[in-house]
């Protein structure tokens, strides 16, 4: 009698061992999934650019993604129709809690506040970027078209 009971218990023990293992692996997988989602939805500080093109009007654009490409290529986030701009001219990206500007080996170079850029450099509000003849003015962290801040009630 004891033998059958113990056999059943041994079976249950093996199941428990693998349930524990399987459970841990399942949680790891979910964890991975959540992190992926978190990375995708993680927001950078919004970035706003004022773009001055020589033969065109000034435009204002706001960005919420973590990486922007500037260039003549139409697939770039900031596509500039100017012959002094290279196809993939410069990159603005958010990491380490900062917005960084990086030249991508453009023909005419990128200037930040009238200085030629050769290493990735942190951007601050009011910085002026020049890609060829095009000038861009940076402003960081100013939400442009969101509704005004309201005080949340305690019930939420």
């Amino acid at each position: 009698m004891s033998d059958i009971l113990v056999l059943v218990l041994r079976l249950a023990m093996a199941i428990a061992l693998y349930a524990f293992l399987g459970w841990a692996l399942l949680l790891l997988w979910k964890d991975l999934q959540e992190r992926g989602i978190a990375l995708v939805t993680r927001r950078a500080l919004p970035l706003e650019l004022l773009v001055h093109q020589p033969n065109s009007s000034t435009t204002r654009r706001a960005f919420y993604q973590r990486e922007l490409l500037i260039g003549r290529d139409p697939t770039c986030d900031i596509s500039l129709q100017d012959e002094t701009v290279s196809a993939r001219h410069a990159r603005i990206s958010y990491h380490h809690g900062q917005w960084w500007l990086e030249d991508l080996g453009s023909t005419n170079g990128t200037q930040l506040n009238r200085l030629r850029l050769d290493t990735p450099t942190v951007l601050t509000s009011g910085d002026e970027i020049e890609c060829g003849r095009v000038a861009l003015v940076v402003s960081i962290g100013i939400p442009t078209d969101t509704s005004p801040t309201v005080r949340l009630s305690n019930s939420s």
Partner: protein
Amino acid sequence: MNTPLRSRRLFGASASFLALFSLILTLSPAVRERTWEVPLRWDHWFGFGVWILCYLLAQRFSRRLLSDPDPYLLAGAFFLSGWGLLTVWRLEPTFGARQTVWLAIATLALVFALRYPRNLALLQRYKYLILLSGLLLTALTLILGSNPSGAGPRLWIGGANLYFQPSEPLKLLLVIYLAAYFAGRLPVETFESQRARNLRQILSIPLIIPTAIMTGLSLLILLIQRDLGTASLFLLVYSFILFLATGKRRVLIVTGLVLAFSALIGYFFTEVIQARLQAWLNPWDDPSGRSYQIIQSLLAVANGGVFGRGPGLGAPRLVPVAISDFIFVAMVEETGLIGAVGLLAWIGLLLARGLRAALLAPDRFQRLLAGGLTIYLGLQSLLILGGNLRLLPLTGITLPFVSYGGSSLMTAFLALALLLRIGSDIEEEPAPLSNHRSYTLLAGLFFLGLFTIALGVGWWTIVRGPALLARTDNPRRSIADRYVRRGSLLDRNHQPITVSERQGREYTRLYLYPDLAPIIGYTHPIYGQAGLEATLDNYLRGLQGNPTRLLWWNFLIYGTPPPGLDVRLSLDLSLQRTADRLLGARAGAIVLLNAQSGEILVMASHPTYDPNLLDETGPRLQTDPNAPLLNRAAQGSYPPASFLDPLLIAHFGPDASPSADQRRAFLDQLGLYRAPNLHLPVAQPARHDTLRVSPLQMALAYACLSNRGTLPAGRIVLAVNTPAQGWVILPALDQPRPVLEADKAQQAAEQWQVPDRPFWRVSALSQENRRSFTWLAMGTLPNWQSVPLTLVVLLEESNLPLATWIGETLMHETLRPRLFSQALPNH
């Protein structure tokens, strides 16, 4: 899903596994002895309770002190240490109690280390102080060292049952030092220039020399202590951390060469290393000496099989130091390949989380520290697991978290605390990394190693298992004999000769007719098996004659063969009694057989011994000059001399003088140059020209005179009692052979007939090396109306009258009608 819920569920799953383990362990005595009338095991529940408290405590504090603690690190470490703790309880309850105390202390240390030092950078600043204090403590063992077991390397400090092994925390301190040093000295990596630097720059003198000196110092102390396992672990840990810091694979190659070279040097100059390497390379040469440990370890793994014997139901205590170095083997024996894979997977998961903590660490010191700690845990696990399975030479180190040992457990828990702290701050941006290859490669090496170990377990359980378990030096066979009824040996009239009887809670083998000892033999846990007990072992043990399903079921449930089968012999106890009385204290042998069927009715060999008293008399018997263990009737080799003449005359005629070849051909036909084939250990025929024969051979040869010239096939086993078909006849293993024309046999028998008696008689004296032997053969006449009989008597002295008296009295007893009808009911 949030982390607290996650870690609660992980706790629940591991606690339920360990609760089931404990429950089975509680019930295991009932299964082992197959009755409820036994005391069950309860003591280990104390360990289980303390484990739960420790786990909850650690979980509560890690959640309170750390922002987002890695639930897998804590769950894995506590799962491993809980399983190890219960296994130690199962093996040695006194050590289990101690390990429970150590677990509580280690948990407190873990909680403390989660908080202090407040800033890990403190460790980096005082790196030399940390390492030197560790070295000093270890060096103290050179002066004050002791060994709790009384002998062996003196690696411990302490007394009064509280011992401490400084080389354990030294591992941790060395890792901290190396991580701190490399983090401070390696060239700072910029965000964009991630090109590999050239080797000379990385392995520059200031980088390598101080660490090499400090590691060398540690190695030196360990080598003086003869703690070779830990020393090789240190060397490996050093080079792996260097590899992690520099990303150069060359470091590993050089270390491999250094290790191989020092092993080679050690092989020729150090006895310890030579013994270890020998035991690793050729374990089967010396299974009871140098490689006893490893062979017992492999036997335990083989006994585990796929499903394991169940907690408390194997015999892992047979493996030396099962609680520390060989604990993995003890776990595999009781949970099988299934349990081994589960355990290895958890070790792998733990290592993976350690490397993850390293990759996400906020600065280089913490990254190297987490990497180094993972290296220490991973390499130590792989070294000892590989050693247990003969994949690597055996190194006397512990399995982290699992093995018995306070210092080892404490060190592992402190490493866990550091990993938890480093792994919990992952919200901060990870430090830059120039080259991820070394981390990927390291993880790959760990997983490959664990996978190889899983394959090794599979190899020893599935592929080599059956052959290993059948080895005669497998002590589990005699343990099974204590709990499973071994088949009885019966005489031809179903009178018991040897039985297994339950005395108290275990079976004991009782030899009811001790005078038959040289023929029946014995089965004994120390002296092994002999005689019919050895040759019929598969039937008596139930391995043969039982359905395969029954074998499989019994092995699954109990890990033993099913109850054994009874075997009926051809011996006749009443005649045997007469023969033994007649032979008395003389040295000699008697064989009486049915000349037609070859069934042996009497086989006596004197002097004899009492196998019931083997425990006390065993050592003396083996060296006794009278050789009582020898079955003189079948294994004795005596010079036949003129005892062959009657047979030669019967064949060639009284006056012929046959050539040597003719003579030899005839004697070969009589079976004197070959070993008779029956279920009995017999003398192997002599290769040289001087003929030696056993009384059994002579009895079979002379049987042809009573059996119309046909040599019968000898039989001593008649039938075996199978559960499915009842008594099944076991046929003779030889074929009867005509060797003499019937009329020649008739003539010869009549020629030597004893006047007015229904039998013939011949005798001879032989001499060799100043020892005399008396041969006598008797047999019924061919025209005898009942069962034809042949009898051979051999005395190890020159005493023809005694031999004649023995022979005639026994013949007379056998032929008495009343006794005879009782003795041979089948005819």
